[in-house]
Structure formats: C-alpha cells, structure tokens
C-alpha cells in the first residue's frame, strides 16, 4: 500500500528569505548581483541585472497593479476558526497566531476594489507569507465574496494567486473551497464578466486546480512555479530527474496552459488593455 502513497505538494518555505528589509543591500539569488533595496522597490522587486522576480507581499502587489489612491479593502474581519481542532506538532490555533504576528495580516488573502488605468476591478490577492498562502474556509469565502461583489457591481475579477494549495488544517472544508470558488466563477461566466487569473510564484495544489486555472485569460508571472503536484512528489513518483524548467511559467505557456507569460513590469498595462477590449463600453 505504501509504495504509491500520495504526498500532496509541500508548502514551500514561508521563511521571508525573499522579503527584503528596508534600506539595505540585497543579493539577487539568481545572478548574485548586489542591489540597493530602494532601487529594487522602484523596479517592482525585479532584479535590475537579470530580471529575477522577487516575491511580493499582497500590499506590494496591489500597489503594483492598482492606480494610486483607488484601493478600498473589502471583506476584512473574516477570521479563521479551528473547526477540526487540528493539532500536529503545533496546534492550528497557534500556527494562525504565529502567522498573524509575523505578517500583521488577518488571513492569507486580501480583497478589495480598485482601478486599473481607470477601469474598476474587484480583486483578490494572496499573501504567501501567511501559512504559505494556503486556502482554508476564509480564503475560499473571501474569493467567493469578491466574485459575488463583482457580479453585483458588474465588475471584472482579478485574482492574484500565490499559494501552496489547500490548507490541511481545515481538512475537507479546505477541499470544498475549490468547489465553492469554481461554482462562483460559473456564475461570473454566465454573466459574461471577465476574469483574469494571474499566477505568481508559486501557484500549486488546490489553488491551481480551481480558480487559478479558470481565467478567461490565464497569465503566469515570469519564472513562477505553477502546477498541481509539487516537483518533489512527482520526482518521487516517477523516480527520475525532472526536465529543466519543469512547471515554470514558460513550461506552462509551451504546453498551452496559460495565455501569456509576462514580466511584472508589463502586467498592469497588459491586463488593463485586455479588460478594455473584453468589456463593452458604457
């Protein structure tokens, strides 16, 4: 039995090794270039030498996509509970507390409304630093509310994913968030409102196998790891080395899973352009 046991994608390290304290010099993990963090910030945290994309917090991501001063956060105050009274080496409640302390965030997603080059949009953005961006009841609920808000307000939806997948600590309730969010997207599609899915590093597991892959336009940020099963699990299963670039954004483009692979600095303009074409005027 045990030789085909399934191991779900491991949450990637949530340690802030790619998050940069203000006002210091940063070494690019890709090319080794030393970068001044203020310059890096101005460049949307893209390496000035090799275009390596550092991970963004939700706050930074929103700032990179939304017109200045137009963001209104929605659905705050929806907080996780511990329906399974889940305990592993640590209690789920303690993990949540630690994540809140570390990130100063309520949960792994931030939702709101803003404008992109003038166009109103409803948006949900993952915070990977909060328990690996894992999706439990709160994340599923807030995404669903964002979609329902867009339906009511007749807005396009943008979801920026960065997640290891479903949150184990809420068991099958997390799994069901995949069905819940996807069902909401069925309604959005019926209403002919555009949905742009932006997959950033990393987008795996139950998040990729639900709303993230359901965009009218699927965009992968340059270099992002995107897939269902994690590379380590696949390697264990097939027992051979994975090809270079496996499950990277460019691999998905080549295999037809995404419409576009974009550099972070192009995202806002390209998404706004596409929305402008898809949305009828008036």
């Amino acid at each position, binding site marked *: 039995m045990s030789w085909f046991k*399934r*191991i779900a994608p491991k949450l990637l390290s949530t340690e802030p090794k790619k998050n940069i304290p203000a006002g210091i010099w940063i070494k690019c993990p890709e090319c080794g270039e030393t970068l001044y963090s203020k310059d890096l910030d101005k460049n949307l945290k893209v390496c000035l030498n090799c275009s390596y994309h550092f991970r963004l917090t939700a706050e930074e991501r929103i700032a990179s996509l939304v017109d200045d001063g137009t963001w209104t956060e929605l659905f705050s105050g929806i*907080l996780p*509970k511990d329906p399974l009274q889940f305990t592993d080496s640590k209690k789920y409640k303690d993990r949540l507390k630690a994540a809140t302390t570390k990130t100063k965030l309520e949960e792994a997603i931030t939702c709101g409304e803003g404008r992109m080059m003038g166009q109103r949009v409803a948006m949900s953005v993952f915070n990977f630093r909060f328990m690996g961006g894992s999706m439990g009841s*709160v994340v599923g609920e807030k995404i669903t509310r964002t979609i329902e808000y867009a339906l009511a307000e007749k807005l396009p939806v943008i979801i920026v994913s960065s997640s290891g997948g479903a949150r184990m600590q809420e068991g*099958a309730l997390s799994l069901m968030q995949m069905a819940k969010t996807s069902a909401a997207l069925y309604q959005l599609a019926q209403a002919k409102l555009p949905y742009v899915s932006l997959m950033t590093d990393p987008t795996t597991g139950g998040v990729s196998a639900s709303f993230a892959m359901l965009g009218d336009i699927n965009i992968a940020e340059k270099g992002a790891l995107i*897939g269902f099963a*994690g590379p380590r699990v*696949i390697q264990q299963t097939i027992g051979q080395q994975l090809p270079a670039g496996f499950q990277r954004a460019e691999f998905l483009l080549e295999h037809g899973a995404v419409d576009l692979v974009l550099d972070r600095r192009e995202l806002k303009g390209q998404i706004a352009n596409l929305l402008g074409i898809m949305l009828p005027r008036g």
Partner: protein
Amino acid sequence: MYVLELEKPVAALRSKIEELRALMDAGNLESGSEIAKLEAKAKQLEEEIFKNLDNWDKTQLARHPFRPCTLDFVQHCTKDFQELHGDRHFRDDPSIVGGFCRIDGTRFMLIGHQRGRTTTENVHRNFGMPHPEGYRKALRLMKLAEKFGVPILTLIDTKGAYPGLGAEERGQSEAIAVNLREMAGLTVPVICVVIGEGGSGGALALGVGNRVLMLEHSIYSVISPEGCASILFGDSSRAQEAARSLKYVAKDLLKLKVIDGFVPEPVGGAHAKPEEALDSLKKAVLKHLGQLEKLSAEQLIQGRYEKFRQMGVFAESV
C-alpha cells in the same frame, strides 16, 4: 486471504470454528454446541469492533482491495450498461469509467473511479489515479447526459490525481478546475457517492453534486494521512495521528456539512458483504433521485450552488 489488523480477532475465532466443523464432519466431535457458542461469540465480537472503529480502521476498510468498486456496482445494480470511452482529445483513461445504464428501470449516466484488484489490473487502471484525460472524459459524459436529460451518478474511489510528468504537461490542474466549474452548471440531477477513498482534487473532480453521500466506512480528505504526516510531522509513518486530526470519516463530515448523508454498511464492512452494501447504496441513490427529479433545471443549479456556497467555517466580526 486479505485480513486487516482489526479483523484478526474475529478471523481467529472463525478459523477455530472451521476446525471444529472439520472435526465434526469427520465424526470426531459429538456436539455442535461449542461451535454455536463460538459463532455467537464471533458475531458479538465483530459487532463490538465495528461499533468502535477509529479513523485509521476506517482508512484500512476504505482501501480494502475487495471493497466494492465502480464496476461491481455496474454489475450488481445496473442493467444495459454501455461503457463509453475517451476524452476525444488524447486517450481513454481506464482509471475512470463511465457510460449509460439503467438502475431499476431509471436511466443514468454512471461515472466512477476504477482501481484494480490484481497487480495487472492496477497497472492497467493506474491504481485508480486519473490523468487529465480521465476528468475530461468524465465531463464529456456529464455533458452528454445533460443533453439528453439523464441524471448523473458518480462513484468516487481514488487516492487522488496522479502526480506524474504527463499529467502536469497535459494540464491536470485545469482539467480538475474545469470539472468543478462545469459541474456547478449541470441542468440534470447529480448524485455523488464516495464509495472508498476520496482523495483530494482527483476525488472532488467528480464530486460537485446536488447530493454528496458516502458509504459509511469511506474517507474523504484534502490529503492522504501519509501525505499529511509527511508534511506536518516530517514522517509519513505517523499517518495514524494524521488520520485522527484530519477528521475525514463520514460522521465528522456530516457534522461539518461537507456531505448530505451516509449509507450504512453491513457489520464486517462492505467487502465482507458486498451485495448487501451495494443494495443499500442503490436504494439511497434512488431515494435521492426521487427528491431531485421534482426540481427544475434552475432549482438544481441554484440548489447545488447554495449547498457548496455555505461550506466553510469562519468567524466574522461585524
């Protein structure tokens, strides 16, 4: 013979009974009273054990190689089954089977995961772990059923989606996701039953129904207990602990409103009395279809949406 740890005490008694019977047949045992006593004891012990199954016991039962599978249901509960093959794009995935059939005269589209019992079968069926083309075939058949107003029954029995190279290349995530979205919009009744192991996205891809049921000793989980233990404890052998924590058995999932009900299994489990278990399953399916048949297409879609819409537990400060 495949005997689970939890079955061993009863199996020991039963083999003793067999020995005594052999003695009696050979004329070396005068009275059958000892046999009758042991039989009563075995029955009582089995009832006792099955009243107190823990999550790990249920995991073993759910994975039992002789537990009734989709094709057993086909054989025992349906007539005129015609299997339909292929996703029309890449290939036929034998780890999901589907086709039209009749159950007590009622038309159905039956779709289910199919694992094997022998090694050869399991290689052919990929241990019941689908590739993207399996989900795509399933959706094709669901749309076919919808077109002709035929209700859909799915039987869920998989460890999960296959974590392989080809599966990723051919868009495993997208295939599962599209099923979730499209099942939400089906205009015919959809009944889903977890009959064995309901593993993660590979299970859910057949799981967006108006009714979601489980066979009593099935499990339905976001991750396998081994996978969970390997991530959280760094040790997959601590799966028993993970099984407890994950609360993936029918009784707990009913409380969490993930499922609508479960179908009781005979004492000894579905593998011990497969026909009895399958008869109960068939009865439950027809009962639920009776309720759903009265609903319009809009009511079916709305009902399915509301059912999944309310899933989740969180706190909200006003």
